[in-house]
């Protein structure tokens, strides 16, 4: 697989140029794998030619050069197999009028999020083909060797080989993949996957009126807005109730609320819109004390009502609802709600952490300390483990001296 030239190598060129040209080729019936390779070669030629002779229409230029490569490749293949007849039939059809940018994005997302690919492959291919990231950047964001990511991408492309990609795909899968990019990718020096997921979701909302696409974008924005307050200078977790709300990104919150309202207006609610509504209520509170818990609980009621068996289908939603119940009807009621989840989530750190929080609300510090300790033992990130150990120590009254500054970050 040829590697994409460094970003910025073609100054002034729209980042979506390559994905759009790729979409055009695949839509025309070219093989995804071959089309991407041909486009890479076209791009290398562009690097050579464009500085002296800038094209009038970069996309058309790239498409023409890539098409020539594809035809050349097919010719040599055909010559090798001595099937001249097949060559004629395989000639690409005349280019149809270029569809709108949004259509290309959606089409390419459907290809990359093909339901038969594994989630990790969908994520990798989407970032590569739609996001325009290099293999190296994607590998870094997932902490795997570049060779491993390259292999993952080329396997994914191979499994798309020979498939008809002109059918509309499954939008629910696309949404899940973008949310996976948002929640699982890491920010490195060169690329921020959360930002990338937001960018892609924004493009998606231009391509489809589906309210859940807007719901997803709103959810990401409303969650991302709190990122600057989520960790202190030493990298320690600051929980929502202790965050410095002055650090929240008000521009992102405003956009998130606007997008959410436009989604809700379409009267077809889904889980992303509901989760975004909950995030919006948190973002809207001027202080933790002013959080509108009754409204949050109402949205959680709606969220858990989406499935017939929420405890098994969506235990995270039931757990989130238990916190809201604790704030509305008292911690004892919240703790009772968590009991339903013991069988499903009893080995997960978040279940114990929520119980610690509810015990603390109830003023039962020894029980809170015990629950935080259990949670720390099961944490899957270093930051959460350290945070839960501090919570346990604090509840036991042995507050570490070095921890004091972390609990109430100074306002800037």
């Amino acid at each position, binding site marked *: 697989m040829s590697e994409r030239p460094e970003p910025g190598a073609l100054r002034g060129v729209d980042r979506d140029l390559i994905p759009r040209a790729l979409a055009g080729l695949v839509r025309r019936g070219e093989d995804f794998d071959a089309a991407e390779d041909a486009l890479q070669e076209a791009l290398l030629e562009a690097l050579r030619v464009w500085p002296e002779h800038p094209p009038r229409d970069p996309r058309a230029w790239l498409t023409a050069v890539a098409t020539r490569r594809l035809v050349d490749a097919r010719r040599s293949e055909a010559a090798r197999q001595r099937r001249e007849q097949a060559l004629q039939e395989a000639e690409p059809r005349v280019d149809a009028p270029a569809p709108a940018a949004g259509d290309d994005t959606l089409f390419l997302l459907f290809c990359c999020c093909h339901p038969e690919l594994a989630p990790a492959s969908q994520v990798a291919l989407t970032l590569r083909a739609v996001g325009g990231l290099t293999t190296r950047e994607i590998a870094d964001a997932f902490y795997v060797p570049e060779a*491993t990511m390259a292999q993952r991408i080329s*396997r994914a492309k191979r499994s798309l080989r020979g498939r008809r990609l002109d059918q509309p795909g499954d939008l629910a899968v696309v949404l899940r993949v973008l949310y996976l990019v948002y929640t*699982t990718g890491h920010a490195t020096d060169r690329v921020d996957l959360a930002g990338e997921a937001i960018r892609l979701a924004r493009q998606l909302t231009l391509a489809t009126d589906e309210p859940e696409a807007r719901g997803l974008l709103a959810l990401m924005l409303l969650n991302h807005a709190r990122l600057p307050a989520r960790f202190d200078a030493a*990298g320690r977790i600051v929980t929502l109730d202790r965050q410095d709300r002055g650090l929240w990104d008000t521009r992102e919150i405003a956009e998130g609320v606007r997008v959410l309202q436009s989604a809700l207006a379409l009267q077809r609610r889904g889980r992303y819109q509901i989760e975004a509504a909950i995030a919006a209520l948190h973002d809207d509170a001027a202080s933790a004390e002013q959080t509108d818990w009754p409204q949050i609980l109402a949205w959680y009621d709606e969220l858990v009502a989406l499935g017939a068996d929420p405890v098994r289908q969506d235990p995270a939603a039931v*757990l989130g609802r238990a916190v809201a119940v604790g704030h509305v009807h008292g911690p004892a009621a919240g703790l009772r709600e968590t009991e339903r989840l013991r069988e499903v989530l009893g080995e997960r750190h978040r279940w114990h952490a929520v119980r610690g929080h509810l015990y603390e609300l109830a003023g039962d510090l020894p029980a809170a300390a015990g629950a935080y300790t259990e949670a720390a033992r099961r944490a*899957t990130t270093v930051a959460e483990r350290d945070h839960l150990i501090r919570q346990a120590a604090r509840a036991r009254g042995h507050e570490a001296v070095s921890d004091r500054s972390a609990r109430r970050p100074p306002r800037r």
Partner: protein
Amino acid sequence: MPKYLLLKHYRGGPEPHRPCPPIDQWAPEDVEAHMAFQHHVSELLQQNGEFVDAQALTPTRTWVRYGGPDAAPVTTDGPHPETSDLVAGWWMIDVESYERALEIAAYASSEPGPGGTPLYEWIDVREVMWERPRTDAA
């Protein structure tokens, strides 16, 4: 995409399913087959796009601790060197799920032992922690 360490041990762990002598007492062709299988597992993981790392450790162990102010580090080879757990090496993998990690570990455990038949070695599967959570904690 969780990451897991699949740890192989020189000693320690559950009762061996198939007790057998140490590898340096096996027939040479069995040793070759065993080692070739280790490479094969790494290659397979690389082809699958699941490979992160593979390392082997020497069996020599030294326990070290701070000796106190102005004192040299204190070392020992441990109180019960014959029975304590001793890691021999690992694969680090990046996979879809815990179930997939178990599947790969079980495959690694099917490595050929004396006589070329599976060794049924216990593999210690441990999840690697991420640095930070990606969303707000509850």
